[in-house]
């Protein structure tokens, strides 16, 4: 597979994902905007995958150091983001029962 073909393929994924994002998120009501933000924020910590690959493949010190900083930062983003969103959402749910 040529470079261009591969690029078009992931570009397709990118563009379609943006459309899915728009469709799904336009429906979120304002009362949930903060949890939406912190929850999506946690999802943006997906860079943790990139960090794992960087630390894992790095033979050179600088790659490992940069990757390790990224790994810690992204993990804080992921774990903290999902947890704090959960904390907030439980408050919204509790009154319901």
């Amino acid at each position, binding site marked *: 597979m040529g470079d261009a073909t591969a690029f078009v393929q992931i570009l397709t994924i990118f563009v379609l994902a943006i459309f899915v994002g728009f469709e799904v998120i336009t429906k979120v009501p304002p009362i949930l905007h903060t949890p939406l933000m912190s929850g999506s924020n946690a999802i943006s910590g997906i860079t943790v995958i990139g960090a*794992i690959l960087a630390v894992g493949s790095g033979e050179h010190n600088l790659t490992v150091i940069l990757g390790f900083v990224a790994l810690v930062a992204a993990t804080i983003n992921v774990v903290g983001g999902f947890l704090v969103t959960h904390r907030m959402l439980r408050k919204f749910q509790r009154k319901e029962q």
Partner: protein
Amino acid sequence: MNSITMVNLSYLLAAVLFIAGLKGLGHPKTAVRGNLMGAVGMLLAILTTLISAEILSLPLILAGLLIGSIIGTVLALSIKMTAMPQLVGLFNGFGGLASAMVAGAVVFQTSLTLTELAAGRPGLQFLIATAASGLIGSVTFIGSLIAFGKLQGIVTEKPVRYKGEQVVKSLVFLSGIALAVLLIRNPEQVELYGYLAAAGILLGILLVMPIGGADMPIVIALLNSYSGIAAAATGFVLSNNILIIAGSLVGASGIILTNIMCKAMNRSLANVLFGGVGAVPEGPAEGDIYAGKIKQTAAEEVAMILKSAQRVVFVPGYGMAVARAQTPVRQMSELLEAEGKEVEFGIHPVAGRMPGHMNVLLAEENISYEKLREMDQINPSFPQTDVTIVIGANDVVNPRAREASDSPIAGMPILNVDQSKTVIIIKRSLSPGFAGIPNPLFAADNTLMYFGDGKKAMEDLVSAYKET
């Protein structure tokens, strides 16, 4: 099936979980499950990567995951709900930092193989994505840190503006682009990536410093979007589907939120980023509007008015968060409801310092989300409302937004509290809100000013009401 197929299928499942999770966040009933689905998707993506990739240093990676998890958990569990905007800003910054660092690590690794093996040049996609990731990631990182500082009170909340600001910003932006082009043409010169990240840092500082406290909801939403775009760019660097999908979902989400916030202020994004609220407020001076027309009230009088009311609406603003007055507000609403009165909360989209800020504070107090009304839902009901209590809000209830086209808030949709029979304003003084203009509502015939600290004023009101 080979392992690459398995990995991609597993990433696909993670992507589906992210999308279904975000969809779940669309309703309070499904939101907890939605968030959990997102978390499971993330766990799946991480485990897949750990198992499949050729990992040379597993203990180091586990150590990194452990340290990050501990810090994240402590931050998420120890923070007070009132400090939520800062925390969201901070987490966002970590995401941006991670993207910039990963791109840096990869570009360095690649430059090694370039010089040692004289391998072919990396593809254009890789290089452009690296540059984008470095620039956007570092802007997100430092921008979020400054937003955090402003919300925490470490950095001034006031807009920091100066002459030639736009020129300086443009020059830094252009030099960032120039460095990106240089890096793309000379990928073996790793130090260029460092300069690029430095330009991003400088740009982030220049972009967020001039933005004032009340515009924070827009900036936080925008930075949220950037962190997603940075993650997607990193996905292009690594040709990794899950990064691209998750990143663009978040990018789209942030852009939608930014757009909603801008609409709620009747301002364009360009105006928030480059224009200036509080430039030169025109219109009648404070003295002309307020002179002799301000009617002051006290807890006992408000309590009596509330006794005879049928329908009461609370309109909270950032002032309620600052004074931490939400607990007595809840107590007051419970007292009123116990006597069969109808109580609702009218919430302006940009009230507070992040999208949905007031809702989180009130939900924390166990107030049912069904009583939290959006602007469009609550506005038609003000003429039938006996008493509206405005606590710590100002610009979002200023009737001048409807009337005067020359004011800085002209055209901004507001809560029409002035249409209710009686308006009680709880506020420390007559000082203007963020827009820096006087509010004719304070001098209106049906308005009573109840001066004081929000929390103290509400507590006094609660006890006065119990005694009435």
